């Protein structure tokens, strides 16, 4: 006896930068005519921050309290820690309960579908009533490779429940074949393609994706999300399936190939209307198709296209620098507090959970709690831990232009009065253009540093999101 698996809400995220294909072509002396663009993470973004943004949107659209989520299922080709607390850090940053379960799926672009199916199984089995699924990726291509201009980044998220919501998982099918396709050897930093694109297309990609697609085509599919790693293969498969331009084409046009996120990202936007959406994911010798049938628009789906449409154009050098493929010579300044030190252990919850200690006597919120044994206003020692508000107003700010590597200028920093009365000082995303006293900001998870292979996450301020999440 299994429970139905229903979709309560969806969300998406795109990175800050867009690399035009023409920039890549020009960098390698290729002729004009390159079209399209790809999403590239800014230096303070990665698969974890994209996942946090997308999951945050899905949770906001769900109307649920974050701490009732029973588990987080996260799929990404390469987690930010090769070994380490990737899943735990994301769960903490999302404000999930320390009792929450779930899994991290990785190792190929198929990981997003694996996360979805694992979460669906948990809901079906009754071990999770509310499951959060997020697929996020930021493909790191080898410079000069043929698909470099297509290698993108993005994230999609779903809140699955056994009861409620406007859509349900209707069918699933998986096929596997043990062959190399897109891969990365042990110790290598960038992803490789097979040496011959027609070998890949004719012998590997099209047969397996087509077989999965044909299984789902038996349903009355209104919209397709089809893998399209090079800008042509998606169209080839669509033609074989007898459909027109797949719905996923708009997501690919906005952020390129978002790897493990692509299947979900190409499909969640199509859940803005009733009907069946088929999502096919591919990678690592596996293809999986999932059909979702919506009775009515799913919460959060209507704004997906707007979320993906944003982004600032970046030049090739900036993209390389952001992917850490272009690095400054010489020493960089190490963190005064190394990520493996005791203060990170002490501060883990308060930094990632964004906690303050509210004085029971005078109400002042002290941040962070671990450095305030006495209230800064009244010296009381009686506190209650509270999650800080995630919206505020800039009280004052600077834009730092002069820092040693690994810092990248310009770096805005602002003192922010949060709506709950707490005051914090944080970095601000972007260049600081347009930042003013009185600007309203949201706090978003970003990567503050990447040191000795270890990412360090914390919250930054960002100009208030103009894309409103519809209230449930």
């Amino acid at each position, binding site marked *: 006896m299994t429970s139905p698996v229903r979709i309560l809400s969806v969300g998406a995220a795109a990175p800050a930068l867009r690399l035009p294909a023409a920039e890549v072509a020009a960098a390698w002396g290729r002729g004009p005519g390159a079209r399209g663009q790809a999403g590239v993470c800014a230096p303070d973004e990665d698969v974890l921050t994209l996942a946090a943004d997308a999951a945050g949107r899905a949770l906001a659209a769900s109307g649920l309290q974050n701490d009732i989520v029973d588990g987080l299922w996260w799929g990404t080709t390469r987690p930010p820690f090769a070994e380490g607390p990737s899943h735990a850090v994301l769960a903490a940053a999302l404000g999930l309960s320390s009792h929450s379960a779930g899994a991290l799926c990785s190792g190929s672009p198929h990981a997003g579908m694996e996360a979805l199916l694992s979460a669906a199984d948990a809901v079906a089995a009754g071990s999770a009533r509310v499951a959060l699924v997020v697929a996020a990726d930021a493909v790191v291509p080898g410079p000069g490779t043929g698909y470099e201009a297509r290698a993108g980044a993005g994230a999609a998220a779903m809140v699955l429940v056994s009861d409620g919501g406007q859509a349900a998982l209707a069918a699933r099918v998986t096929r596997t074949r043990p062959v190399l396709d897109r891969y990365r050897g042990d110790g290598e930093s960038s992803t490789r393609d097979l040496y011959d694109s027609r070998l890949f297309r004719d012998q590997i990609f099209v047969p397996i994706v087509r077989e999965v697609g044909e299984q789902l085509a038996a349903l009355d599919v209104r919209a397709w999300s089809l893998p399209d790693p090079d800008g042509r293969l998606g169209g080839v498969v669509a033609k074989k399936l007898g459909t027109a331009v797949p719905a996923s084409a708009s997501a690919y046009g906005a952020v390129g190939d978002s790897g493990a996120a692509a299947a979900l990202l190409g499909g969640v936007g199509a859940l803005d209307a009733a009907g069946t959406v088929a999502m096919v994911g591919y990678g690592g010798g596996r293809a999986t198709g999932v059909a979702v049938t919506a009775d009515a628009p799913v919460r959060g789906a209507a704004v997906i296209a707007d979320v993906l449409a944003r982004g600032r154009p970046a030049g090739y050098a900036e993209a390389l620098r952001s992917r850490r493929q272009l690095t400054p010579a010489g020493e960089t300044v190490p963190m005064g507090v190394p990520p493996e030190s005791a203060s990170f252990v002490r501060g883990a919850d308060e930094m990632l959970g964004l906690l303050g200690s509210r004085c029971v006597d005078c109400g002042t919120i002290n941040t962070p709690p671990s450095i305030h044994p006495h209230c800064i206003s009244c010296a009381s020692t009686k506190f209650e831990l509270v999650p800080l508000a995630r919206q505020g107003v800039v*009280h*004052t700010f600077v834009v730092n232009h002069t820092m040693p590597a690994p810092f990248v200028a310009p770096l805005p*920093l602002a003192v922010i009065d949060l709506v709950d009365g707490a005051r914090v*000082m944080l970095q601000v995303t972007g260049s600081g253009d347009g930042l003013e006293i009185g600007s309203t900001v949201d706090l978003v998870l970003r990567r503050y540093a990447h040191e000795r292979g270890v990412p360090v996450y914390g919250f930054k301020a960002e100009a208030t999101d103009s894309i409103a999440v519809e209230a449930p």
Partner: protein
Amino acid sequence: MSWNRVAVVGAGLIKFGELFEQSYEQMAAGAFQAAVGSVDRGFDPSQVEAAFVATQRGSLWGQEGIAGNTVPSAIGLAGIACTRIENACPSGSDAFRVGAMAVASGVHDVVLVIGVEKMRDKSTEEGLLSRAAAGHPIFTRGETAPVLFAPFATRHMHEYGTTREMLAAVAVKNHYNGARDPFAHFQNEITIDDVIASPSVCHPLHLLDCCPQTDGAAATLLVSAERAGEFTDKPVYVAGFGVGTDHPYLHEKAAFTGLKATTLAAERAYEMAGVEPAQVDCAEVHDCFTITEILDIEDLGFVEKGKGGVASLDGETSLRGRIPVNTSGGLLAKGHPIGATGVAQLTECWWQLRGEAGDRQVETPNGYALQHNVGGRGSGVSVVNILTTNAP
């Protein structure tokens, strides 16, 4: 409050600058010799009973172990009592305060206060700028020194209409004074346009809004007032001092229009000295950045809160103004070798009160000069010392 009075009978410094050719120890010896040489009736170095050494950055190459024993050996007084004082940018002024208390308590009769700082033995990136990565991993990440003061400029401009020109006027005035101080790092005059056209370091502060990185050393000789006559006919006395602190992180500041640590230190120093701000004839204040001097002159009570920018542009703090500030060129032109800074400021006050400041001499009808530093994370500590020619 009952304390034995303290006189300053000698003071001196070495020329500030990028002193690549001098070691820490050579700088210390130069400053000590200058102070000894300044004593009117001569001074036998062996009379020093105890030394207080201000050095803020003990982390430069080869100086990691600076402690109380480093300086006595360098100045030929190995064996004397010696203590190192580290209290951020006010290290020098706090060493002076502690040295004065050692005399005031009656424990010592003759004390050396010496500040020595090597800023240029490490690259800028590995020196001051490296603090972008220091401190709390999130709340202070990217916080170089200008980040500690630039938010006050942003807010002061917003609340009081302070302008870029007003900020620049501070640098122009202090470079004018520095051009008349043979010990200053920079001895060139600049214009408001120069300041505004200089590169942005940390918006809204530009390069010429910022003090340079400077090597230097300075020393003062303190004796009990009753023995001052052994050394000079023109003693300068310690009138009072004060220290104030504030929360260390910027997000803990109640306001970004003034520095609370300065206000507290000044209140305590004025009360101890029994003077009002209006009685101060001239002041050496902490102008690590132009905005800092504007905050200082308000927090020290020389001008009304919010009027520091206008007063600076109007010349109220110039050599011939109502309250001359930073006649030595200040940190902006004379330089900011951190541990030496406060002691060098006190040396300038000593010269002004004795009428020995040459081209930059100001009138001192009341006989009071004030010295001030503020610094540390988030300007969390400030020291004010007040000197006087008025006999106790």
